[in-house]
């Protein structure tokens, strides 16, 4: 009795494993019937999630993941694990060089600004504007007290974004131009954060903190403030004209021209309805930046 049952269970599970292996081999990279997989930037994720929700009614199955940020999305796209990568940075030459077999096609869906975010206490005490040199010294750990840049006598605590995050690359580009960013400073008051919500969460809970963060994530949060950079505010006009130094385009990236469900999804985000999602999450629509 016992052993028969045992054997059946054994056979069943072996069959299950074998069957799954067989399915795996059969499906391969062809795509199969699964959901449309979208992954990458946490900046783009809320828009993608809303669009996916809206398209559910049309019977489209779309999943959104954010492991690894923009660069994570791009590398997963190159590895054939997903169909669409969300990116909050333009494709770099290194990305293309790293996966020569992938035909990256970027579709811009809007634009966004990265702000240097400080706590309200710091801003109120006089830190309203930072120059590029001041920003560099802050993030390299050379400025350790806010009083150096006209703020309160309060220790600086830097939250830097982890490698591969679009936000971090925009900051690096602003500070270092085309030069490579140096290794992280050996400063004590320095920690690494991942996604945008985590960044905002930690900024709020840490006095004297500063971090690069999409300005849209700060809207409506009275305890945080965006500083102007070299006197330029992150206003829609400045972003649209490219005057604000840390503006960035937001993209969906596909391997080859988008087709099928991927095309439906991207097209939806480009429609008036879809573009409203950009506004909803505090980003600029293509129209606003004149594209």
């Amino acid at each position, binding site marked *: 009795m016992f*052993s028969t049952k045992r054997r059946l269970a054994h056979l*069943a599970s072996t069959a299950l494993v074998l069957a*799954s292996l067989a399915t795996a081999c059969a499906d391969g990279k062809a795509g199969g*019937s*699964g959901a449309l997989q979208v992954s990458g930037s946490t900046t783009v994720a809320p828009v993608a*999630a809303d669009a996916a929700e809206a398209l559910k009614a049309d019977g489209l199955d779309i999943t959104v993941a954010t492991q690894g*940020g923009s660069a994570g999305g791009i590398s997963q796209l190159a590895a054939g*694990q997903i169909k669409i990568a969300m990116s909050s940075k333009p494709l770099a030459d290194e990305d293309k060089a790293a996966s020569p077999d992938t035909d990256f096609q970027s579709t811009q869906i809007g634009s966004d600004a990265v702000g240097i975010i400080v706590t309200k206490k710091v801003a109120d005490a006089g830190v309203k504007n930072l120059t590029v040199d001041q920003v560099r010294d802050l993030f390299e750990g050379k400025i350790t007290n806010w009083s150096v840049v006209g703020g309160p006598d309060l220790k600086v605590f830097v939250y830097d974004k982890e490698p591969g995050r679009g936000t971090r690359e925009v900051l690096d580009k602003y500070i270092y131009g085309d030069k490579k960013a140096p290794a992280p400073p050996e400063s004590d008051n320095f920690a690494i954060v991942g996604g945008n919500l985590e960044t905002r969460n930690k900024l709020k809970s840490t006095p004297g903190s500063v971090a690069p963060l999409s300005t849209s994530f700060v809207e409506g949060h009275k305890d945080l403030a965006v500083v102007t950079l070299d006197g330029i505010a992150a206003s829609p006009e400045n972003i649209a004209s490219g005057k604000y130094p840390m503006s960035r385009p937001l993209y969906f990236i596909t391997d080859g021209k988008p087709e099928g469900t991927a095309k439906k999804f991207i097209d939806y985000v480009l429609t008036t309805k879809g573009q409203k999602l950009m506004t909803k999450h505090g980003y600029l629509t293509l129209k606003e930046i004149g594209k």
Partner: protein
Amino acid sequence: MTTTLARDAAPPDAAIRPRPSKWVWSWTGAGVFAVAALLLVVVGYLVAGISSGSVDWTALLTDASWSPPNAAYGGLAMIYGTAVVCALALILAVPVSWGAALALSEYLPPRVARPLRMCVELLAAVPSIVYGLIGIMVIRPVVAWIGDVPGGDSLLAAGIVLAVMITPTIVAVSVDALTAVPDRYREAAFSLGLTRREVIRSAVLPLARPGMRSAVLLGLARALGEAIAVFLVVGRADGRLPTSFDGFLHSLVHPGQTLTTKLAGPEPVLAGTSGPYFAALCGLGLVLLAFVAAATIWGTRGQKRGTSDKRAPAFRGAPRMRVERDRLAMGLRLGALLLPTALLLGMLALLVTRGSSAFNPSFWFTSATGAAGGGVRDQIVGTLLLIGTTGLIALPLGFGAGILIGVHASERVARLLQTLTIVLGGAPTILLGLAGFVILSSIMGWGRSWLAGAIVLVPVVIPVIALATSARVRSMPPELTESALSLGLTRAQFIRSVVVPYAWPATLTGLLLGLARAAGETAPLLFTATVFFGAPAFPSGVVESPVQALPTHIFTLSQDSGDPQAVTQAWGSAMVLVLITAVLLSAAVALRNRFEGERWTT
């Protein structure tokens, strides 16, 4: 007269004789093969990764600067972080745990000790993501306040979280070691007129010490391999190495990085699957695995030697104030017990008050809306699907392996297999997740899928089943074996008709315990099975259909969001997860008590 003794000429009914049981060997073989293969896959993935690009081992082990864009791969700061965090955890946890274990086994009457012991064992099974959540909400602010530093993300916070996590493990295993000391030693010592403290010091501890030491090593192995709880509170800043003692103290209250947090971050996804970057990460993984395996093997070896260590304590002369010292020891030990008890009550209070949404039925039966609204129905379904599939795959394999380890004739082979199983059980789950990500998702081309998630959870469950089963088989009364063999059963028939039915309840207990552990795993699922948004409750496909699961849901909520609604949601989900684990555990404990299976805390 002559025919009365003649037997019926017909042979006995052939149908009721046991059929030949050839499948027994292939099945137990498959079990052992699975354990060996899984271990090989983890090690093989790391070794293949290392050989895919050149690793500068000297730099990896002695240099502190980690900067992939500049091709600098120095892991010393991560090794330092791991060492400091684990040392802190042990320094905080060991005295308390040993004190509490002594109080439980030597001071309290069994009536009080038994339920307390069970609570401690339940604590040992609380999912690490829940400890991570507590770390974020409670320990970070405390460290920020103590160290007068902003934020509170620090090595110290990680050390405290780990200390809280490993205390129950150390207490439970130490209590086992203490209760294994025969009462006649205590009686003999008491009859010499020694105080209780002296009895414990001179008669009990010398015998229990190896077991208590291995409790610490098993706790250390757990601390070394833990990724998610540390990830949430350590701050993840690379390249910190103190140069002076002051600098060392300073580094404790500041962000750092450990081997596991480096691997749990985004870098494995960014590194691709070959080249120096990937090789360096695999190198770190190998270093981590080596540490954990060393602690695990050393820990279980110590237990083996067990009570053979009978060195008499050195004579220290007649001490003064014996009674006072005795009282002091008692006070300290009972006090040490108060700490885990307070911890348990505090955690329960936090969970119940903050996670009260879990008591609302609609929370269980509606699906999530937006980032932090609605219920967790889909997550519950996903978690159940994952652990169900895991159990289905792991049960026959773990059972087969356990039977073979238990009945195998050669003691040496059995010990080797057992060690392999224990090492597999101790393998950091983040490595399982990464191996799954690289092998299933990258090389085999699966997307994130529920099946990939279940497969990476299988190695978590198999060792628990195998060890529970083999321990049960070993405890089989010799009469049973002898009478079975004297009936002329072949070895296969013996296994089928005697061993399997005998070991079965212990296997089920092991399965439930393993699944309780698997249900709370976060790190392996992040890379292989779950997504941020859009996974349906029931996956529509096999290898390309992700699910949502409670642990990763809590992880996202607790890490990403400071808004009160998300926090409430996180606590509610944690409460649901704890309840699911508790159901599995209670079933296991009930089974164990019913069938007197092996204790499960080791």
